[in-house]
């Protein structure tokens, strides 16, 4: 009984310590892009582009030279109309090279209201929050 209680006590302590140590912040993958130029207004979740997943499969130049994606979150005015026409994401996400665009939720899975941004280096000046 005593041992059981002690184990329980230890468990409580461990959980308490764990919750104290575990920070409640955003730890998005380095290079993830949140795209919310138009999503919020269209009542869709913002799209999240996982850079890492794509760089395993493609060189940078495939998107940034061949497909004409400009460097910089929010600089490409990507709309679903353009994607359906085969521009931007639609060059591959057409059911031939990659899965097609009817899987709305797979890209539009960001937390609503998040601004367009790159989840890069926290020391990068654009990522440092300015005090209000």
């Amino acid at each position: 009984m005593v041992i059981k209680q002690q184990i329980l006590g230890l468990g409580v302590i461990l959980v308490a310590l764990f919750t104290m140590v575990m920070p409640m912040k955003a730890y998005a993958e380095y290079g993830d892009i949140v795209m919310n130029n138009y999503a919020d207004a269209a009542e869709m979740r913002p799209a999240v582009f996982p850079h890492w997943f794509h760089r395993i499969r493609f060189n940078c130049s495939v998107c940034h030279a061949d497909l004409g994606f400009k460097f910089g979150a929010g600089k490409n005015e990507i709309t679903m109309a353009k994607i359906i026409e085969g521009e931007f994401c639609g060059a591959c996400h057409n059911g031939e090279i990659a899965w097609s665009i009817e899987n709305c939720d797979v890209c539009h899975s960001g937390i609503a209201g998040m601004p367009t941004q790159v989840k890069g280096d926290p020391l990068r000046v654009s990522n440092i929050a300015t005090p209000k």
Partner: protein
Amino acid sequence: MIMYKLSILMLIASISGVFSLVASAESSNTFNRMLKPQAPANLPPAEDGIHDPESPGTHMLQPPKEAFSGLVKAKWGNKVDWVKSIHAKKIAPRHNASDATSKPIIMNLDIIREVRGSMPDVVFPHDRHTLLLACSNCHTGIFIPQKGANQMSMAAIMLGESCGKCHGAVAFPVATSTCKLCHAKPKAKGSVLKRSVMSKP
């Protein structure tokens, strides 16, 4: 009953023990007072703070750790050394979206930039950049391909200009652990700040 009381006492004692531990950790003389705990890396999408766990799509996404398990490790960014992973044949990214056999044209040319401060000179390796990028990605929109024609500073890079277009956003970040990846060539003899100046007279 006595056993039960004893166990409750033990529980209280152990909890209070932890509180005293926490209290001492919050006192003024802790070890590494300014050092923030390192952020957990490569969390699955539902826990990364930018994906909505209530979206069914979030749970269809591959967790980064699963994809990175066989890749060459690094201490920064995604914790993956992407160039080494290609050289080690752990990944084989396509150079053309629809043609798996297309290969990049590698340009083997190091550009040395002499820096004014005490930092070692910068070596820009064209080879590992042309492995991933096309010439048009940088020239001439970001860099004029001419010696001395490009003004750059760490401040500009931190603001996302020049090298900072990629480094700090997607490519390896600007951090104390990564300075020497670029600042790789020790200063020539007789340059501004010699080591002898720094050491004892």
